[in-house]
């Protein structure tokens, strides 16, 4: 119990893992490369979270406060791990800028994901037209209280298009996975836009709607029934401009007709990429990546959150697109696995 467990990454999964460990009396060292804790929801300024509807700065901010005030947790921000070695029960590692080697009985990687950079899909107009924005930017517009506006001239949009699957499910750019959360997040954003701007029409261009489980009626149905968001089955091929408004170009697959429709604001529901640092993380920690570049999971059923290296655990979006609440659950599960491995490293460390 004296040697701290190393938790790498201070987003929802890392915060959850650290808290769980500390609440059993286990010391924790929480490391994050950013200048503050909270991960994507805080750093990217998310608005209201799915499914609780709480503001990110309250919900995840609360988790951060809880950790910051916990004496069993040492926090190192603006820090990375430079060396990592050893075996379950006796890992050795070094923090950037330190000379001394540290020790950890167990390590949990909660290194998260990176937002897809839509510059990689130039035909969709991001970086070319100021009124083509990402879901993350709209989250920021809402969470900052400034409201949803066109970035070109500050006008309030009358018509907004949300394009799903930008940076997901696209072999052209080597992204064959579904980012899992964009459908629900987009439906949620669409409702928030409609609530804030009742005169504004919101259209969602989709190929499939994946508001899985209980999100179905709370987001997909609700957005139609209560907020009159319109869903059009079409993947947009190009975003252009007529000089005044943006033009989205697609095929309305349900009427088998090409469409070129004007919009004031086009929102790209950007997907979840592997963390841009994953190659480095993999080489330092000696873990394998799966074929898309996320951390490869180990055994699925014997122990929650195992990687390909015994005793080294993973939680959250580091190993694939994940929701916030599932990341939190995985953080807790990984903490449990870490504690187990400390107690009985020979039999249970998987």
């Amino acid at each position, binding site marked *: 119990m004296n040697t701290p467990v190393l938790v790498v990454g201070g987003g929802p999964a890392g915060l959850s893992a650290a808290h769980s460990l500390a609440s059993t009396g286990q010391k924790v060292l929480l490391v994050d490369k950013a200048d503050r804790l909270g991960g994507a929801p805080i750093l990217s300024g998310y608005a209201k979270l799915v499914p609780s509807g709480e503001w990110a700065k309250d919900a995840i901010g609360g988790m951060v406060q809880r950790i910051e005030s916990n004496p069993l947790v040492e926090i190192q921000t603006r820090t990375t791990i430079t060396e990592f070695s050893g075996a379950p029960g006796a890992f050795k590692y070094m923090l950037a800028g330190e000379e001394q080697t540290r020790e950890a009985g167990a390590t949990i990687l909660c290194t998260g994901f990176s937002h897809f950079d839509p510059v990689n899909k130039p035909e969709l107009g991001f970086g070319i037209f100021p009124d083509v924005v990402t879901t993350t930017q709209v989250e920021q517009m809402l969470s900052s209280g400034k409201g949803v506006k066109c970035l070109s001239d500050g006008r309030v949009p009358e*018509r907004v298009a949300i394009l799903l699957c930008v940076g997901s499910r696209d072999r052209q750019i080597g992204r064959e996975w579904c980012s899992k959360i964009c459908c629900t997040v987009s439906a949620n954003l669409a409702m928030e836009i409609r609530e804030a701007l009742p005169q504004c*029409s919101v*259209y969602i261009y989709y190929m499939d*709607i994946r508001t899985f489980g209980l999100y179905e009626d709370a987001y*997909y*149905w609700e957005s*139609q*029934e209560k907020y*009159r968001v*319109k*869903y*059009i*089955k079409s993947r947009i091929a190009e975003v252009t401009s007529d000089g005044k408004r943006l033009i989205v170009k697609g095929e*309305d697959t*349900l*009427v088998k*007709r*090409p*469409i*070129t*429709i*004007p919009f004031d604001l086009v929102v790209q529901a950007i997907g979840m990429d592997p963390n841009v640092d994953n190659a480095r993380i993999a080489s330092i920690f000696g873990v394998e990546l799966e074929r898309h570049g996320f951390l490869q999971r180990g055994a699925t059923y014997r122990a929650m959150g195992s990687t390909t290296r015994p005793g080294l655990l993973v939680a959250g979006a580091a190993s694939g697109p994940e929701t916030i609440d599932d990341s939190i659950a995985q953080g807790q599960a990984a903490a449990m696995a870490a504690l187990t491995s400390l107690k009985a490293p020979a039999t249970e460390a998987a």
Partner: protein
Amino acid sequence: MPILSKHLIRDENLIRNENLVIEGVDVSGDWSTFIKTRVVQDYNDSLQEDIAALPGGENIHRCWQCGSCTNTCTINALNPDFNPRYWIYLIRIGMEEELIRDKEIIWQCVSCNKCTSVCPRDVMPEGVMRATAHWLELKGYTPESPATIFDKVFSSQVFAKGKIEEGRLMMRFFKKTGQKLTQDWLVGLIRGLVLRLPIGLLTRMGLSALIHPRTRDWSNHRMAIAEYITEQKALHRKALGLPTTEESR
């Protein structure tokens, strides 16, 4: 034309001048042929609200396009162009022009309610068909369909008397739609029936055609209904942005 013929182009999208001379040069025919794009270029945002404002159309916004309605549709089986899912979609998205292309068949819904029974989202497609048919008539895209005329003749008899007498109903309908009062196929049928019927019953049937069946003390109901209809009509016309009385059109 790079393909065989013009089947894949809608007639209205083909521009061609058969007699055109510009600056003394004859540019008729092939030279002046041009195909307009078939791309949908905008939505009519208010179309869905129009339909939702009419009786039966209230739940249209719930549709998620699963197609159960069209799958089960009685009329779709006879005519593949009769497609409730498609029309609901056009309305929801606001493709008005596309919808109007089918104005001649939308009223043909037989109200078998198969669609409403299977719809997982309680859209009530049968009601939407009715609302759409009314919308087409209110907007002046179609004259009143035979079905609407029949509904009106029937309803007015109910509203006036409280009951219906079928013989009179048929006669009135045929008259209103300018059809022969004695449809050939009906005549033989009724002649056969008359031959089989005893005199007493015939007399009774004859009498019921003269002494119309009616509900007693109906006048209060008649007035209440008339008042309600006037109110509703005004509401519907207002929702569609039409002058609130038909006369002021």
